[in-house]
């Protein structure tokens, strides 16, 4: 969990991985990063907008600083694209400063970190640990890898904009989504499929699929920065996951809308097994609870979190309606032990 050490905290937040492993700090709530204040969990977010950022002057093979800035514009624009999301950003100029320096500026750029051989990029935050306001957030992309800004991607190179969309998601206060599947390969893990840019593992080289945010990402960003009109128009699913009557901590709860194909997910985040999936489009959903893949636990929770993965996949017995502006009856998904 995030520690309450001072009024301003710097936290190495999240990484994009090409294979399993890497540093991840606590995920406080469904899709959002949070901090515990006075025993209460609050999400962190930018309250002062437009978010001003600077780009490092450091070029890397295949990508100039100017091209990096253009890709960043695209990444910010992608998160501002959903109707009802109030996020704005402003490029404040180039800088020779490095990312991850507590200088009061949000600095984004390349940095050579060959020792992080499975980390494409990362974001850090400085935030007010009383209000949850994000004061500064830096992003680095690891120049130990090969990068591209080609409009259709480039074989053998990672797409800058795709990875920036993920990292800007963190910069905005989003945590990781578990809407994805991976398989073990000789060099680690490979994504076989996902439905969220905020899944912690990136697609392989050449892919530009992560330039476009998905329903799960849109729900997350709208949950944090949704306008009043969006909050009136969207709804939520609330409930709990239980095993023999007791709450299940850390269950991954997925809601599927058969009419639209949308998948939106969250986690149970306490020992009672309670979960909330907010900012969902109204409709009728089929809700499924599954244990997290034990290989992925560290991407979502701190090591000492008592995650229960010893249960079988279960479905809620009835369809679950998401009405506009609120939630239907709280549901209970009863799962069985493995």
């Amino acid at each position, binding site marked *: 969990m995030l520690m309450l050490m001072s009024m301003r905290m710097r936290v190495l937040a999240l990484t994009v991985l090409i294979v399993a492993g890497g540093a991840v700090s606590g995920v406080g709530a469904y899709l959002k990063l949070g901090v515990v204040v006075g025993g209460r969990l609050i999400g962190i977010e930018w309250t002062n907008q437009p978010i001003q950022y600077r780009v490092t002057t450091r070029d890397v093979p295949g990508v100039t600083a100017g091209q990096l800035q253009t890709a960043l514009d695209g990444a910010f624009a992608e998160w501002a694209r959903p109707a009802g999301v109030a996020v704005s950003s402003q490029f404040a100029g180039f800088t020779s400063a490095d990312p991850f320096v507590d200088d009061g500026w949000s600095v984004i750029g390349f940095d050579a970190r060959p020792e992080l051989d499975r980390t494409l990029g990362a974001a850090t935050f400085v935030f007010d640990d009383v209000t949850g306001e994000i004061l500064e957030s830096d992003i680095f992309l690891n120049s130990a890898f090969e990068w591209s800004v080609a409009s259709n991607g480039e074989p053998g190179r990672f797409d800058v904009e795709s990875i920036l969309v993920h990292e800007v998601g963190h910069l905005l206060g989003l945590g990781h989504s578990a809407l994805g599947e991976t398989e073990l390969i000789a060099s680690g893990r490979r994504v076989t499929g996902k439905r969220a840019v905020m899944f912690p593992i990136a697609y392989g080289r050449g892919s530009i699929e992560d330039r476009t945010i998905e329903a799960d990402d849109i729900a997350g960003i709208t949950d944090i920065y949704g306008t009043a009109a969006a909050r009136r128009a969207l709804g939520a699913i609330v409930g709990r996951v239980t095993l023999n009557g007791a709450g299940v901590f850390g269950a991954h709860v997925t809601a599927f809308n*058969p009419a639209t194909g949308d998948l939106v997910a969250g986690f149970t985040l306490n020992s009672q097994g309670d979960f909330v999936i907010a900012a969902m489009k109204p409709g*009728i959903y089929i809700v499924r609870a599954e244990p997290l893949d034990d290989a992925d636990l560290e991407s979502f929770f701190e090591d000492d979190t008592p995650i229960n993965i010893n249960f079988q996949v279960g479905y809620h017995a009835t369809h679950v309606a998401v009405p506009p502006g609120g939630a239907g009856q709280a549901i209970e998904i009863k799962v069985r032990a493995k």
Partner: protein
Amino acid sequence: MTAGPLALLFATSLSVAAPAAAQAPAGTPARPARDREWSVGGSLTGRSSMGDATATLLGSGGEPSVGLFRTENRFGAVAGPELAIAFRFRPDLWIEVAGALTRASLTSRVTNDADGAPAFVVSTPVIRVSAEAGVLWYFRGQDATAWFLRGGAGFLREGSGTLALAENGLLASGGVGFRHWWRTNGTGAFKRVGLRAEGRGVFLMSGINLGERALRFGPAGVLSLVVGY
């Protein structure tokens, strides 16, 4: 006809009854004898498929790559009361306004779970309220029994106590049926009492939607008690 609610309904129809119209000339098709007919009965609509939908993860090119689970979605058979009033426009042509309240079970059969969960059926009761305007053409018949074609269109709303969400939609129907008078010389408001039976095809658009088909189809049967005056 002897049931309390039914008697009350007929009493209501009495209060709005217009003076009886003249009999249609003998020998003409259909020959509706009165200006208005009330009918009250029940309808049964067969189950209708809403199609399949698969929860899918996408690969690095945006192609479907992993199916989390598959759903086969359908409405079960729908039954409930239906009330209609018809107005004679021409001797063989009537205009009808009908309302129905029906109850069905919305089911999704979940299969092919990526983690091997056994097949599971998700089920939810749904109530449908509909209002429809239609046209009846009596194409064949005598005084006692007349056959008609019917077409209609209207509005529906679907929801239930467990579904906090209710959805609006449209419906269209077409069918064939007959009306048989077993009493044609009564007194007061119930001079003609009979039975009406009809087979319909019902198309539903929008409303509660699961799966790939926004347009649903179901066969339906309607059996009603008819009072003409």
